[in-house]
Protein backbone atom coordinates (compact mmCIF):
# COMPACT_ATOMS: atom_id res chain seq x y z
CA UNK A 1 0.00 0.00 0.00
CA UNK A 2 2.69 2.59 0.83
CA UNK A 3 4.40 1.88 -2.52
CA UNK A 4 1.05 2.31 -4.28
CA UNK A 5 0.39 5.60 -2.54
CA UNK A 6 3.84 6.89 -3.46
CA UNK A 7 3.35 5.87 -7.10
CA UNK A 8 -0.20 7.30 -7.00
CA UNK A 9 -1.63 4.04 -8.24
CA UNK A 10 -5.34 3.73 -7.50
CA UNK A 11 -6.81 0.62 -5.92
CA UNK A 12 -10.10 -0.91 -7.05
CA UNK A 13 -11.90 -3.98 -5.83
CA UNK A 14 -13.79 -5.95 -8.44
CA UNK A 15 -17.05 -7.82 -8.07
CA UNK A 16 -15.72 -11.05 -9.54
CA UNK A 17 -13.51 -12.15 -6.66
CA UNK A 18 -10.06 -13.73 -6.83
CA UNK A 19 -6.59 -12.31 -6.34
CA UNK A 20 -4.94 -8.95 -6.82
CA UNK A 21 -3.94 -7.83 -10.30
CA UNK A 22 -1.56 -5.10 -11.37
CA UNK A 23 -2.81 -3.24 -14.43
CA UNK A 24 -1.01 -0.76 -16.61
CA UNK A 25 -1.23 -0.06 -20.34
CA UNK A 26 0.85 -3.14 -21.06
CA UNK A 27 -1.64 -5.50 -19.43
CA UNK A 28 -4.67 -6.22 -21.59
CA UNK A 29 -7.97 -6.89 -19.82
CA UNK A 30 -10.42 -9.00 -21.78
CA UNK A 31 -14.03 -9.43 -20.69
CA UNK A 32 -16.30 -12.00 -22.28
CA UNK A 33 -19.99 -11.29 -21.72
CA UNK A 34 -22.38 -14.17 -22.26
CA UNK A 35 -25.65 -15.59 -21.07
CA UNK A 36 -25.35 -17.83 -18.04
CA UNK A 37 -26.04 -20.85 -20.25
CA UNK A 38 -23.22 -19.96 -22.62
CA UNK A 39 -20.70 -19.34 -19.79
CA UNK A 40 -17.60 -21.21 -20.88
CA UNK A 41 -14.21 -20.02 -19.66
CA UNK A 42 -12.15 -22.63 -21.50
CA UNK A 43 -13.76 -21.64 -24.79
CA UNK A 44 -12.94 -17.98 -24.14
CA UNK A 45 -9.35 -18.80 -23.25
CA UNK A 46 -9.11 -20.85 -26.43
CA UNK A 47 -9.84 -17.63 -28.32
CA UNK A 48 -6.80 -16.09 -26.63
CA UNK A 49 -4.41 -19.01 -27.08
CA UNK A 50 -5.42 -19.63 -30.70
CA UNK A 51 -5.05 -15.92 -31.51
CA UNK A 52 -1.58 -15.92 -29.97
CA UNK A 53 -0.55 -19.02 -31.90
CA UNK A 54 -1.68 -17.43 -35.15
CA UNK A 55 0.38 -14.28 -34.74
CA UNK A 56 3.35 -16.06 -33.17
CA UNK A 57 3.35 -19.72 -34.16
CA UNK A 58 6.46 -20.37 -32.12
CA UNK A 59 4.74 -19.33 -28.84
CA UNK A 60 4.13 -22.17 -26.41
CA UNK A 61 0.92 -21.02 -24.68
CA UNK A 62 -1.48 -23.27 -22.82
CA UNK A 63 -4.58 -22.70 -20.69
CA UNK A 64 -4.55 -24.64 -17.42
CA UNK A 65 -7.46 -26.24 -15.60
CA UNK A 66 -7.30 -23.34 -13.14
CA UNK A 67 -7.98 -21.02 -16.10
CA UNK A 68 -4.52 -19.44 -16.10
CA UNK A 69 -2.59 -19.17 -19.35
CA UNK A 70 1.03 -20.28 -19.10
CA UNK A 71 3.90 -19.49 -21.41
CA UNK A 72 6.38 -22.35 -21.84
CA UNK A 73 4.55 -24.29 -19.15
CA UNK A 74 5.52 -22.08 -16.21
CA UNK A 75 5.26 -18.31 -16.79
CA UNK A 76 1.82 -16.98 -16.05
CA UNK A 77 0.66 -14.50 -18.67
CA UNK A 78 -3.04 -14.53 -17.84
CA UNK A 79 -5.34 -15.02 -14.86
CA UNK A 80 -9.11 -15.25 -14.73
CA UNK A 81 -12.07 -14.15 -12.62
CA UNK A 82 -15.77 -14.20 -13.32
CA UNK A 83 -19.24 -13.37 -12.09
CA UNK A 84 -22.56 -15.07 -12.61
CA UNK A 85 -25.86 -13.29 -12.25
CA UNK A 86 -29.48 -14.21 -12.88
CA UNK A 87 -29.31 -14.80 -16.61
CA UNK A 88 -25.94 -13.45 -17.63
CA UNK A 89 -22.27 -13.81 -16.88
CA UNK A 90 -18.94 -12.21 -17.46
CA UNK A 91 -15.55 -13.80 -17.56
CA UNK A 92 -12.56 -11.50 -17.54
CA UNK A 93 -8.90 -12.24 -17.80
CA UNK A 94 -5.62 -10.40 -18.04
CA UNK A 95 -2.99 -10.76 -20.73
CA UNK A 96 0.51 -9.55 -20.00
CA UNK A 97 1.80 -8.00 -23.19
CA UNK A 98 4.34 -5.45 -21.94
CA UNK A 99 3.51 -4.53 -18.37
CA UNK A 100 6.04 -2.96 -16.02
CA UNK A 101 7.32 -6.14 -14.34
CA UNK A 102 9.24 -4.43 -11.56
CA UNK A 103 6.21 -2.32 -10.59
CA UNK A 104 4.10 -5.46 -10.70
CA UNK A 105 6.29 -7.43 -8.33
CA UNK A 106 6.92 -4.58 -5.90
CA UNK A 107 3.26 -3.55 -5.72
CA UNK A 108 1.96 -7.09 -5.31
CA UNK A 109 4.31 -7.76 -2.41
CA UNK A 110 2.52 -7.41 0.94
CA UNK A 111 3.95 -4.52 2.94
CA UNK A 112 2.66 -5.72 6.27
CA UNK A 113 3.97 -9.03 7.45
CA UNK A 114 2.22 -10.54 10.43
CA UNK A 115 -1.31 -10.48 8.98
CA UNK A 116 -3.42 -13.50 9.82
CA UNK A 117 -6.88 -14.21 8.48
CA UNK A 118 -9.12 -16.88 6.99
CA UNK A 119 -8.83 -15.41 3.52
CA UNK A 120 -7.88 -17.84 0.74
CA UNK A 121 -4.08 -17.76 0.56
CA UNK A 122 -2.71 -16.14 -2.56
CA UNK A 123 -0.76 -18.48 -4.85
CA UNK A 124 1.96 -16.32 -6.43
CA UNK A 125 3.22 -17.46 -9.83
CA UNK A 126 6.24 -16.41 -11.86
CA UNK A 127 4.99 -14.11 -14.60
CA UNK A 128 6.26 -13.04 -17.99
CA UNK A 129 5.30 -10.54 -20.64
CA UNK A 130 4.53 -11.80 -24.13
CA UNK A 131 7.07 -9.32 -25.44
CA UNK A 132 9.81 -11.00 -23.37
CA UNK A 133 9.46 -14.03 -25.65
CA UNK A 134 7.98 -12.48 -28.81
CA UNK A 135 9.55 -9.00 -28.91
CA UNK A 136 8.04 -8.12 -32.28
CA UNK A 137 4.43 -8.65 -31.15
CA UNK A 138 2.73 -5.26 -31.46
CA UNK A 139 -0.22 -4.30 -29.27
CA UNK A 140 -2.49 -3.50 -32.24
CA UNK A 141 -1.49 -6.76 -33.92
CA UNK A 142 -2.52 -8.62 -30.75
CA UNK A 143 -5.90 -6.85 -30.62
CA UNK A 144 -6.64 -7.59 -34.28
CA UNK A 145 -5.76 -11.26 -33.85
CA UNK A 146 -8.05 -11.53 -30.83
CA UNK A 147 -10.95 -9.92 -32.69
CA UNK A 148 -10.47 -12.26 -35.65
CA UNK A 149 -10.23 -15.33 -33.45
CA UNK A 150 -13.27 -14.29 -31.38
CA UNK A 151 -15.33 -13.88 -34.54
CA UNK A 152 -14.10 -17.19 -35.88
CA UNK A 153 -14.80 -19.08 -32.64
CA UNK A 154 -18.31 -17.67 -32.18
CA UNK A 155 -19.32 -17.40 -35.85
CA UNK A 156 -19.59 -13.59 -35.84
CA UNK A 157 -18.44 -10.78 -38.12
CA UNK A 158 -18.05 -7.92 -35.65
CA UNK A 159 -15.49 -5.17 -36.12
CA UNK A 160 -13.36 -3.73 -33.37
CA UNK A 161 -15.26 -0.71 -32.00
CA UNK A 162 -13.77 1.76 -29.54
CA UNK A 163 -16.15 2.71 -26.70
CA UNK A 164 -15.75 5.13 -23.86
CA UNK A 165 -16.48 3.26 -20.62
CA UNK A 166 -17.55 6.47 -18.89
CA UNK A 167 -20.18 7.34 -21.51
CA UNK A 168 -23.38 7.70 -19.49
CA UNK A 169 -25.57 7.65 -22.60
CA UNK A 170 -24.13 4.31 -23.70
CA UNK A 171 -24.01 2.87 -20.19
CA UNK A 172 -26.70 4.54 -18.04
CA UNK A 173 -25.85 4.42 -14.35
CA UNK A 174 -22.14 3.80 -14.92
CA UNK A 175 -21.25 6.99 -13.01
CA UNK A 176 -23.03 5.74 -9.89
CA UNK A 177 -21.46 2.33 -10.23
CA UNK A 178 -18.03 3.91 -10.47
CA UNK A 179 -18.66 5.99 -7.35
CA UNK A 180 -19.75 2.91 -5.44
CA UNK A 181 -16.76 0.91 -6.61
CA UNK A 182 -14.42 3.73 -5.55
CA UNK A 183 -15.98 4.04 -2.10
CA UNK A 184 -14.04 3.06 1.00
CA UNK A 185 -16.99 0.95 2.13
CA UNK A 186 -16.77 -1.26 -0.97
CA UNK A 187 -12.99 -1.30 -1.36
CA UNK A 188 -11.99 -1.79 2.29
CA UNK A 189 -15.18 -2.01 4.34
CA UNK A 190 -15.89 -5.61 3.33
CA UNK A 191 -12.44 -6.84 4.26
CA UNK A 192 -12.66 -10.16 6.05
CA UNK A 193 -11.65 -10.06 9.69
CA UNK A 194 -7.88 -10.15 10.10
CA UNK A 195 -5.33 -9.96 12.89
CA UNK A 196 -2.05 -8.10 12.88
CA UNK A 197 0.56 -9.47 15.24
CA UNK A 198 3.90 -7.85 14.90
CA UNK A 199 6.88 -6.49 16.75
CA UNK A 200 7.38 -2.73 16.74
CA UNK A 201 10.86 -1.27 16.89
CA UNK A 202 10.64 1.98 18.83
CA UNK A 203 13.35 4.62 18.87
CA UNK A 204 14.17 7.75 20.83
CA UNK A 205 16.69 9.57 18.61
CA UNK A 206 17.58 12.21 21.13
CA UNK A 207 18.77 9.64 23.67
CA UNK A 208 19.92 7.16 21.00
CA UNK A 209 17.79 4.54 22.76
CA UNK A 210 15.35 1.97 21.51
CA UNK A 211 13.10 -0.88 22.53
CA UNK A 212 10.86 -3.56 21.12
CA UNK A 213 7.12 -3.56 21.65
CA UNK A 214 4.42 -5.94 20.60
CA UNK A 215 1.29 -5.00 18.66
CA UNK A 216 -1.83 -7.08 18.50
CA UNK A 217 -4.70 -5.65 16.48
CA UNK A 218 -7.95 -7.09 15.17
CA UNK A 219 -9.61 -5.47 12.21
CA UNK A 220 -13.15 -6.22 11.10
CA UNK A 221 -14.80 -4.68 8.05
CA UNK A 222 -11.78 -2.43 7.75
CA UNK A 223 -12.29 -0.98 11.26
CA UNK A 224 -10.04 -1.51 14.29
CA UNK A 225 -12.02 -3.81 16.57
CA UNK A 226 -9.37 -4.34 19.19
CA UNK A 227 -5.89 -3.04 19.79
CA UNK A 228 -3.32 -4.07 22.36
CA UNK A 229 0.21 -2.78 22.63
CA UNK A 230 2.72 -4.33 25.02
CA UNK A 231 5.22 -1.53 25.54
CA UNK A 232 7.77 -1.64 28.36
CA UNK A 233 6.51 0.63 31.14
CA UNK A 234 9.89 2.33 31.43
CA UNK A 235 9.62 3.45 27.78
CA UNK A 236 6.10 4.81 27.96
CA UNK A 237 3.73 4.87 30.93
CA UNK A 238 1.07 2.17 30.67
CA UNK A 239 -1.71 4.77 30.82
CA UNK A 240 -0.43 6.32 27.59
CA UNK A 241 -0.13 3.06 25.64
CA UNK A 242 -3.59 1.98 26.70
CA UNK A 243 -5.16 5.37 25.96
CA UNK A 244 -3.53 5.34 22.54
CA UNK A 245 -5.02 1.90 21.88
CA UNK A 246 -8.43 3.24 22.83
CA UNK A 247 -8.08 6.20 20.47
CA UNK A 248 -7.69 3.77 17.56
CA UNK A 249 -10.76 1.68 18.38
CA UNK A 250 -13.49 2.00 15.80
CA UNK A 251 -11.26 3.95 13.41
CA UNK A 252 -10.58 2.77 9.89
CA UNK A 253 -7.42 0.68 9.56
CA UNK A 254 -5.97 3.50 7.48
CA UNK A 255 -2.93 5.67 8.18
CA UNK A 256 -4.76 8.90 7.28
CA UNK A 257 -7.65 8.33 9.63
CA UNK A 258 -5.42 6.99 12.37
CA UNK A 259 -3.08 9.97 12.03
CA UNK A 260 -5.99 12.37 12.43
CA UNK A 261 -7.20 10.56 15.55
CA UNK A 262 -3.72 10.44 17.03
CA UNK A 263 -2.87 14.13 16.39
CA UNK A 264 -5.25 15.32 19.06
CA UNK A 265 -3.91 12.78 21.51
CA UNK A 266 -0.29 13.75 20.86
CA UNK A 267 -0.93 17.34 21.88
CA UNK A 268 -1.57 16.25 25.43
CA UNK A 269 2.06 15.39 26.20
CA UNK A 270 5.43 17.14 25.95
CA UNK A 271 9.15 16.53 26.23
CA UNK A 272 10.48 12.98 26.25
CA UNK A 273 7.01 11.42 26.35
CA UNK A 274 5.90 13.47 23.40
CA UNK A 275 8.97 12.46 21.39
CA UNK A 276 8.44 8.78 22.13
CA UNK A 277 4.72 9.00 21.43
CA UNK A 278 5.43 10.59 18.04
CA UNK A 279 7.80 7.78 17.21
CA UNK A 280 5.25 5.18 18.31
CA UNK A 281 2.60 6.80 16.15
CA UNK A 282 4.94 6.85 13.15
CA UNK A 283 5.70 3.16 13.57
CA UNK A 284 2.00 2.32 13.97
CA UNK A 285 1.06 4.26 10.87
CA UNK A 286 3.76 2.41 8.95
CA UNK A 287 2.14 -0.90 9.96
CA UNK A 288 -1.17 0.36 8.61
CA UNK A 289 0.46 1.09 5.28
Amino acid at each position, binding site marked *: MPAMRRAMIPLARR*RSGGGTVYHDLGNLNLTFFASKKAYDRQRNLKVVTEALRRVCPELDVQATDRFDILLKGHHKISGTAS*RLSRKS*SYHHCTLLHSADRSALSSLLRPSCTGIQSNATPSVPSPVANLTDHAPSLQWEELLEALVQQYNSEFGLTSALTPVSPSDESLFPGVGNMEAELRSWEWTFGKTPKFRVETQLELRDEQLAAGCSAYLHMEVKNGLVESCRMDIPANWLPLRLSSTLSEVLLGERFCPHRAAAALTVFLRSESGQLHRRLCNLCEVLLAVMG
Partner: protein
Amino acid sequence: MAMRAALRCLSVNLSPRLPQLSSAAQVSATRLLCRSGFPRTLSTDSGQCTALKFTEKHEWVLVESGIGTVGISKYAQEALGDVVYCGLPEVGQRLEQMDEFGALESVKAASELYSPLTGEVTAINTELAGNPGLVNKSCYADGWLIKMTIEKPEELHKLMDQPAYDKFIKSLEE
Protein backbone atom coordinates in the same frame (compact mmCIF):
# COMPACT_ATOMS: atom_id res chain seq x y z
CA MET B 1 -53.41 -28.06 8.01
CA ALA B 2 -49.93 -27.26 6.84
CA MET B 3 -48.80 -30.58 8.34
CA ARG B 4 -51.39 -32.57 6.38
CA ALA B 5 -50.61 -30.79 3.13
CA ALA B 6 -46.91 -31.38 3.58
CA LEU B 7 -47.48 -35.05 4.40
CA ARG B 8 -49.49 -35.39 1.22
CA CYS B 9 -46.56 -33.95 -0.69
CA LEU B 10 -44.21 -36.30 1.11
CA SER B 11 -46.20 -39.35 0.18
CA VAL B 12 -46.29 -38.19 -3.44
CA ASN B 13 -42.50 -38.14 -3.37
CA LEU B 14 -42.28 -41.53 -1.71
CA SER B 15 -45.00 -43.36 -3.62
CA PRO B 16 -42.95 -44.54 -6.60
CA ARG B 17 -40.84 -46.58 -4.22
CA LEU B 18 -42.98 -47.37 -1.17
CA PRO B 19 -46.53 -48.64 -0.67
CA GLN B 20 -49.08 -46.13 0.68
CA LEU B 21 -48.47 -45.48 4.37
CA SER B 22 -51.06 -45.05 7.08
CA SER B 23 -51.34 -41.62 8.75
CA ALA B 24 -49.34 -42.66 11.78
CA ALA B 25 -46.67 -44.19 9.61
CA GLN B 26 -46.54 -41.02 7.52
CA VAL B 27 -45.86 -38.91 10.60
CA SER B 28 -43.00 -41.13 11.75
CA ALA B 29 -41.62 -41.24 8.20
CA THR B 30 -41.54 -37.44 8.23
CA ARG B 31 -39.74 -37.36 11.57
CA LEU B 32 -37.19 -39.86 10.29
CA LEU B 33 -36.52 -37.80 7.18
CA CYS B 34 -36.14 -34.61 9.21
CA ARG B 35 -33.68 -36.17 11.58
CA SER B 36 -31.60 -37.70 8.82
CA GLY B 37 -30.64 -34.30 7.48
CA PHE B 38 -33.20 -34.13 4.70
CA PRO B 39 -34.31 -30.52 4.23
CA ARG B 40 -36.53 -29.52 7.15
CA THR B 41 -39.80 -29.02 5.35
CA LEU B 42 -41.92 -28.75 8.47
CA SER B 43 -41.98 -26.67 11.59
CA THR B 44 -44.96 -26.50 13.89
CA ASP B 45 -45.37 -22.82 14.63
CA SER B 46 -49.01 -21.91 14.85
CA GLY B 47 -50.56 -19.80 12.14
CA GLN B 48 -47.34 -19.29 10.11
CA CYS B 49 -46.64 -20.69 6.69
CA THR B 50 -43.55 -22.59 7.66
CA ALA B 51 -42.77 -25.10 4.94
CA LEU B 52 -39.48 -24.72 3.06
CA LYS B 53 -40.00 -22.58 -0.03
CA PHE B 54 -37.76 -22.24 -3.07
CA THR B 55 -37.05 -19.62 -5.70
CA GLU B 56 -36.12 -20.18 -9.35
CA LYS B 57 -32.68 -18.94 -8.40
CA HIS B 58 -32.27 -21.96 -6.12
CA GLU B 59 -32.54 -20.11 -2.83
CA TRP B 60 -34.68 -21.52 -0.03
CA VAL B 61 -36.47 -19.67 2.75
CA LEU B 62 -37.80 -21.16 5.99
CA VAL B 63 -40.10 -19.05 8.14
CA GLU B 64 -40.18 -19.31 11.93
CA SER B 65 -41.90 -16.73 14.16
CA GLY B 66 -42.11 -14.19 11.38
CA ILE B 67 -38.41 -14.39 10.47
CA GLY B 68 -37.25 -16.01 7.24
CA THR B 69 -33.95 -17.89 7.15
CA VAL B 70 -32.42 -17.91 3.66
CA GLY B 71 -29.93 -20.27 2.09
CA ILE B 72 -29.13 -21.98 -1.21
CA SER B 73 -30.34 -25.41 -2.28
CA LYS B 74 -28.35 -28.59 -2.74
CA TYR B 75 -28.66 -28.17 -6.51
CA ALA B 76 -27.13 -24.68 -6.24
CA GLN B 77 -24.25 -25.64 -3.97
CA GLU B 78 -23.35 -28.55 -6.22
CA ALA B 79 -23.37 -26.29 -9.27
CA LEU B 80 -21.20 -23.72 -7.47
CA GLY B 81 -18.44 -26.02 -6.35
CA ASP B 82 -16.44 -25.31 -3.20
CA VAL B 83 -17.39 -21.95 -1.77
CA VAL B 84 -14.33 -19.99 -0.67
CA TYR B 85 -15.88 -16.65 0.29
CA CYS B 86 -19.35 -15.39 1.19
CA GLY B 87 -20.11 -11.75 0.48
CA LEU B 88 -23.17 -11.00 2.61
CA PRO B 89 -25.16 -7.81 3.30
CA GLU B 90 -25.16 -5.70 6.47
CA VAL B 91 -27.68 -6.32 9.24
CA GLY B 92 -30.38 -3.71 8.86
CA GLN B 93 -30.17 -3.61 5.08
CA ARG B 94 -33.57 -3.53 3.44
CA LEU B 95 -34.08 -5.84 0.47
CA GLU B 96 -36.79 -5.94 -2.17
CA GLN B 97 -37.71 -9.32 -3.61
CA MET B 98 -35.15 -10.23 -6.32
CA ASP B 99 -32.61 -7.64 -5.11
CA GLU B 100 -29.05 -8.85 -5.31
CA PHE B 101 -27.94 -9.18 -1.68
CA GLY B 102 -24.50 -10.67 -2.01
CA ALA B 103 -22.35 -13.20 -3.81
CA LEU B 104 -20.74 -16.56 -3.17
CA GLU B 105 -17.24 -16.99 -4.57
CA SER B 106 -16.13 -20.39 -5.72
CA VAL B 107 -13.65 -21.71 -8.26
CA LYS B 108 -16.44 -21.43 -10.80
CA ALA B 109 -17.16 -17.69 -10.40
CA ALA B 110 -18.56 -15.13 -8.01
CA SER B 111 -22.29 -15.99 -8.15
CA GLU B 112 -24.91 -13.48 -7.19
CA LEU B 113 -27.48 -14.13 -4.48
CA TYR B 114 -31.03 -12.83 -4.88
CA SER B 115 -33.43 -11.99 -2.08
CA PRO B 116 -36.41 -14.38 -2.12
CA LEU B 117 -38.60 -11.85 -0.28
CA THR B 118 -39.00 -8.20 0.65
CA GLY B 119 -37.80 -7.44 4.15
CA GLU B 120 -34.97 -6.32 6.38
CA VAL B 121 -31.85 -8.33 7.17
CA THR B 122 -31.90 -9.22 10.88
CA ALA B 123 -28.88 -11.52 11.00
CA ILE B 124 -26.09 -12.86 8.83
CA ASN B 125 -24.34 -16.18 9.37
CA THR B 126 -21.02 -15.07 10.84
CA GLU B 127 -19.72 -18.67 10.87
CA LEU B 128 -19.33 -18.45 7.10
CA ALA B 129 -16.50 -15.92 7.39
CA GLY B 130 -14.21 -18.55 8.87
CA ASN B 131 -15.89 -21.58 7.33
CA PRO B 132 -17.44 -20.79 3.93
CA GLY B 133 -17.51 -24.53 3.13
CA LEU B 134 -20.56 -24.83 5.41
CA VAL B 135 -22.61 -23.68 2.44
CA ASN B 136 -21.59 -26.88 0.63
CA LYS B 137 -21.55 -29.25 3.61
CA SER B 138 -24.80 -28.15 5.24
CA CYS B 139 -26.74 -25.99 2.82
CA TYR B 140 -30.09 -26.42 4.61
CA ALA B 141 -28.84 -26.07 8.17
CA ASP B 142 -25.46 -24.67 9.33
CA GLY B 143 -24.80 -23.12 5.90
CA TRP B 144 -27.70 -20.64 6.15
CA LEU B 145 -26.87 -17.21 4.76
CA ILE B 146 -29.14 -14.52 6.21
CA LYS B 147 -32.26 -14.04 8.30
CA MET B 148 -34.81 -11.42 7.35
CA THR B 149 -38.21 -9.98 8.25
CA ILE B 150 -41.16 -10.76 5.99
CA GLU B 151 -42.70 -7.52 4.86
CA LYS B 152 -45.02 -9.07 2.26
CA PRO B 153 -46.20 -12.55 3.30
CA GLU B 154 -48.04 -12.92 0.00
CA GLU B 155 -44.65 -13.21 -1.73
CA LEU B 156 -44.04 -16.38 0.25
CA HIS B 157 -47.13 -18.04 -1.15
CA LYS B 158 -45.91 -17.52 -4.70
CA LEU B 159 -42.64 -19.38 -4.10
CA MET B 160 -42.26 -23.08 -4.95
CA ASP B 161 -42.75 -25.77 -2.37
CA GLN B 162 -40.45 -28.80 -2.27
CA PRO B 163 -42.29 -30.93 -4.88
CA ALA B 164 -42.66 -27.99 -7.27
CA TYR B 165 -38.96 -27.21 -6.87
CA ASP B 166 -37.97 -30.84 -7.48
CA LYS B 167 -40.04 -30.76 -10.66
CA PHE B 168 -38.40 -27.48 -11.65
CA ILE B 169 -34.93 -28.98 -11.25
CA LYS B 170 -35.90 -31.99 -13.38
CA SER B 171 -37.06 -29.65 -16.14
CA LEU B 172 -33.70 -27.84 -16.05
CA GLU B 173 -31.75 -31.04 -16.37
CA GLU B 174 -33.53 -31.94 -19.59
